[in-house]
C-alpha cells in the first residue's frame, strides 16, 4: 500500500473516531490538503461541516471554498472554531501551518484548549504542518505522516501528466520509461515532479534520453544539501580507460540501478570500495562513474561529520545519509573512508557508532544511492566494513603496468603539451616511469606543459621531458615498504580492478597477480 493510501486510511479512521486533534505532517501542503478534502467529500460525511483555515485565504468551507467569515486572522478563525464546537456536534476545522506548534508556547497552549473544546462536542481540529507537534498536543490526538510520493504514486503523477499532453508534443516514452522516471523522481515533492515534467514538455518533445536527464533535474532541485558536497565534473573526468574488470562490473550495475525492480526481491546496488596505491585513480573513478552513469556526484566528507559534542557526529551522519536518500539516484563518493571510520578503539565510542550507523544504512537503504568509497589504508578500516555483503564489491587498484603507462603518457602528453608524442619518446618514458602512479605521470607532464607555456613550443626538447621523468621520485621509490604492504593486502583480499594479471617482472619483487589503471581521457 502506498504511503498516501495508508495515510488516507488512517485519517479516515481518525475522523470517523472524532479524534479531537489530528496532526497531518507533510512538507507538501497541497497534497496534504487534498488528502483531508478527500475525507470531507466522502458521501457518508455529507452532513458534517468541514472548514479550512490558511493565512492567505482565511477561513473557508473545505468543500465549496466559500469564505466563512471576513476576519482572516488566526485568532478569529480559532474563535469561529470554538463557536462551532460549542454550538454543534461533529464539526471539523482544519488549520494549515497556523503557527509554530512544535514546542510549548502560547499558540500550542491555545490550540490544546481548542482541541479540548472540540472533544466536548465530538469536534475535530486538524493541523496540517511540516514540523512535529508539541508533545502536549500529540497527547490530545493522533497523527498521520504523509511522506513524499513513492514510485507507484509518482508513476501515476507522470502518466497523468503525459496523458494531458498527449498530442500536444511528441512523447517517446514507453511504460517502462515512465516507471524508470518515477524511480528517479522519488524523493522530490509532487509539485517538483510536475515542474520537471513540464520543463521536458516545454522543450517541444519528451524523448527517450530525457529519462536520464531527470537525475540532473532532480539534482538542481536540491540546492542546499545538508552534510553533502555537490561535486561538479570537468570534461576530463568524463572518460575512463583501463580498469577493465571494474568497468565491466560497473556496466552490469548500471543496468540494475536504472532498472525497474518491482516484482523482484532484488535491491539497487549499494556500491563499491576501491582500495589501493595512492595516485592510481581511485578518486577519479568516482567521478568517472558519475559521468558515465549520468548521475549527480556528491561527496561525503567524514572528517567534517565529526563534531565536538556528544551525539553531534552521529546526528550529522544521519542527516547526510538522509540527504543522500533524498537526492537518489546519485553517486555518493566517500574519499579516504578510513579517515572517518578508523579509530575503532577510541575511548569515546563515536567511531564505532558511526561505523554501525553507516553499515545499517548501507544494508537497509533501498534508495538508488551508489556508494564509491576509496581507501589508501585499508588496514585501519573496521573488518565488518570489508565483509562481503556490505559493499557489493571490493576492488584493488594497483600501479599501472607497461601498457597502461603507455596509454596514460599519451593522454597527458596530448593534454599538457598539446601535440602527439613521438613513439620512440613514449617508449623511453614508459621505461622510465616504472613504479609511477598515474598521478606521478600527470605531474611530470604538467611540468613539461608549464615549460612550454613559459618559453614557447620551440623550447620543447625530448631531453627535457626525459630529465623531468628521471627526476620524478614516485611514492613506490620513496616509500617502497608502504606501497608493497598495500599491494600485498590488495592481492590477497580484493578483486583486481585491472584487466589481467601481469608478470612479476613488470613490477619487481612481490609483484601483484593483477592490477589496474585508470586513464582519464578528454
Amino acid at each position, binding site marked *: 500500500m502506498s504511503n498516501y493510501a495508508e495515510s488516507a486510511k488512517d485519517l479516515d479512521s481518525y*475522523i*470517523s*473516531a*472524532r479524534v*479531537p486533534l489530528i496532526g497531518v505532517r507533510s512538507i507538501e501542503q497541497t497534497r496534504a490538503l487534498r488528502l483531508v478534502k478527500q475525507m470531507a467529500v466522502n458521501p*457518508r*460525511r455529507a452532513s*458534517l461541516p468541514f472548514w479550512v483555515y490558511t*493565512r492567505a485565504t482565511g477561513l473557508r468551507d473545505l468543500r465549496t471554498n466559500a469564505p466563512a*467569515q*471576513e*476576519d*482572516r*486572522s*488566526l*485568532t*478569529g478563525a480559532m*474563535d*469561529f*472554531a*470554538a*463557536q*462551532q*464546537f*460549542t*454550538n454543534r*456536534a*461533529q464539526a471539523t476545522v482544519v488549520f494549515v501551518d497556523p*503557527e509554530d506548534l512544535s514546542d510549548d*508556547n*502560547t*499558540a500550542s497552549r*491555545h490550540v490544546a484548549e481548542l482541541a*479540548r*473544546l472540540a*472533544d*466536548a*462536542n*465530538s469536534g475535530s481540529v486538524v493541523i496540517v504542518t511540516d514540523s512535529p507537534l508539541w508533545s502536549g498536543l500529540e497527547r490530545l490526538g493522533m497523527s498521520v505522516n504523509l511522506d513524499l510520493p513513492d514510485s507507484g504514486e509518482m508513476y501515476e503523477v507522470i502518466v497523468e501528466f503525459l496523458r494531458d499532453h498527449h498530442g500536444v508534443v511528441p512523447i517517446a516514452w514507453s511504460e517502462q520509461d515512465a516507471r524508470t522516471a518515477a524511480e528517479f523522481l522519488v524523493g522530490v515533492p509532487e509539485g517538483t515532479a510536475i515542474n520537471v515534467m513540464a520543463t521536458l514538455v516545454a522543450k517541444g518533445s519528451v524523448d527517450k534520453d530525457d529519462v536520464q536527464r531527470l537525475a540532473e533535474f532532480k539534482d538542481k532541485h536540491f540546492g542546499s544539501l545538508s552534510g553533502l558536497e555537490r561535486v561538479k565534473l570537468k570534461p576530463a573526468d568524463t572518460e575512463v580507460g583501463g580498469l577493465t574488470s571494474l568497468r565491466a562490473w560497473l556496466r552490469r550495475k548500471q543496468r540494475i540501478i536504472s532498472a525497474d525492480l518491482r516484482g523482484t526481491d532484488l535491491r539497487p546496488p549499494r556500491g563499491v570500495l576501491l582500495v589501493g596505491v595512492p595516485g592510481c585513480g581511485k578518486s577519479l573513478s568516482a567521478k568517472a562513474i558519475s559521468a558515465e552513469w549520468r548521475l549527480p556526484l556528491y561527496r561525503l566528507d567524514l572528517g567534517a561529520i565529526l563534531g565536538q559534542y556528544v551525539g553531534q557526529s552521529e546526528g550529522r551522519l544521519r542527516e547526510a545519509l538522509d540527504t543522500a536518500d533524498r537526492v537518489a539516484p546519485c553517486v555518493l563518493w566517500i574519499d579516504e573512508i578510513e579517515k572517518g571510520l578508523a579509530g575503532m578503539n577510541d575511548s569515546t565510542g563515536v567511531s564505532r557508532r558511526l561505523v554501525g550507523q553507516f553499515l545499517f544504512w548501507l544494508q537497509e537503504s533501498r534508495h538508488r544511492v551508489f556508494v564509491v568509497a576509496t581507501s589508501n589504508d585499508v588496514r585501519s578500516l573496521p573488518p565488518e566494513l570489508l565483509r562481503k555483503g556490505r559493499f557489493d564489491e571490493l576492488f584493488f587498484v594497483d600501479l599501472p603496468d607497461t601498457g597502461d603507462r603507455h596509454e596514460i603518457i599519451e593522454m597527458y602528453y596530448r593534454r599538457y603539451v598539446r601535440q602527439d608524442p613521438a613513439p620512440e619518446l613514449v617508449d623511453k618514458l614508459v621505461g622510465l616511469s616504472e613504479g609511477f602512479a598515474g598521478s606521478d605521470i600527470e605531474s611530470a607532464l604538467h611540468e613539461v606543459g608549464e615549460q612550454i607555456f613559459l618559453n614557447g613550443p620551440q623550447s620543447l626538447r625530448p631531453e627535457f621531458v626525459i630529465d623531468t621523468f628521471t627526476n620524478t621520485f614516485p611514492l613506490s621509490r620513496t616509500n617502497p615498504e608502504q606501497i608493497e604492504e598495500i599491494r600485498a593486502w590488495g592481492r590477497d583480499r580484493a578483486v583486481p580492478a585491472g584487466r589481467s594479471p601481469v608478470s612479476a617482472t613488470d613490477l619487481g619483487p612481490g609483484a601483484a597477480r593483477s592490477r589496474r589503471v585508470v586513464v582519464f581521457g578528454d
Partner: protein
Amino acid sequence: MWITGGHYQAWSAFLQQWGDGSPADPATLPRLEPADLAGDTWERLMNQITAALDRRLTTWSDTLSRELSNAPDEFAAARALDHARWGLPPIRALAAAPGLPEAVSTRLTELVDNQIRSTQDQIDEQVRRMRHRGVSSTAVEARLRTVRENPLTAVLSQSHATRGGWDADPTVTPRRRVSPH
C-alpha cells in the same frame, strides 16, 4: 409628557454598573426621548452615558496596552488584540442602545468607532516607533504583520464574530459520539 423618574433612574443605575464593567445588556433599558426629560436632566443623562463609555474604553485600552506589552510572542500579541476585540461589541451595543433616540445613538456610535480607529492608528504608530528603540527589523515586521492581521477595526464590520465558543464549561467531561461516518 413627563415620563416617570424611574426611566432616568433605571438608566442612571445601569450606567453606573455598566461603567464598572458589568456585562448588563443595554437592550433591556427603557426608551428615552429628549422631550420626556427636562433639558438639564437630559444633559446630565447624556453626560453619564459618555462618562460610562469613556470608563469602559479607558479600562479596555489599559488592558490591551498591558497585554500587548507583556506578550511573549506574536501569537500572544494576536490573542491580546483578539481579546480586545471581544471587549468592543458590548461598548458599541451601549452606544447603539435601542432605548436611545436615533440621532444620539448615531453620534455615540460614531464617537466609539472613531475611538477604535484612533487606537488602531496609535498601535500602528507604536510598532513603527519600535525601530527607533533598537528593536530588530524582523521583530518589528512580525509585530506589524500581527497587528494588520488582527485589526481592532474588524469589529466595525457587520459580519464580525467574536467570543461565543470559548464560554463552554471547561469542567464538563467530554462525551464523544462516534457514528459510522
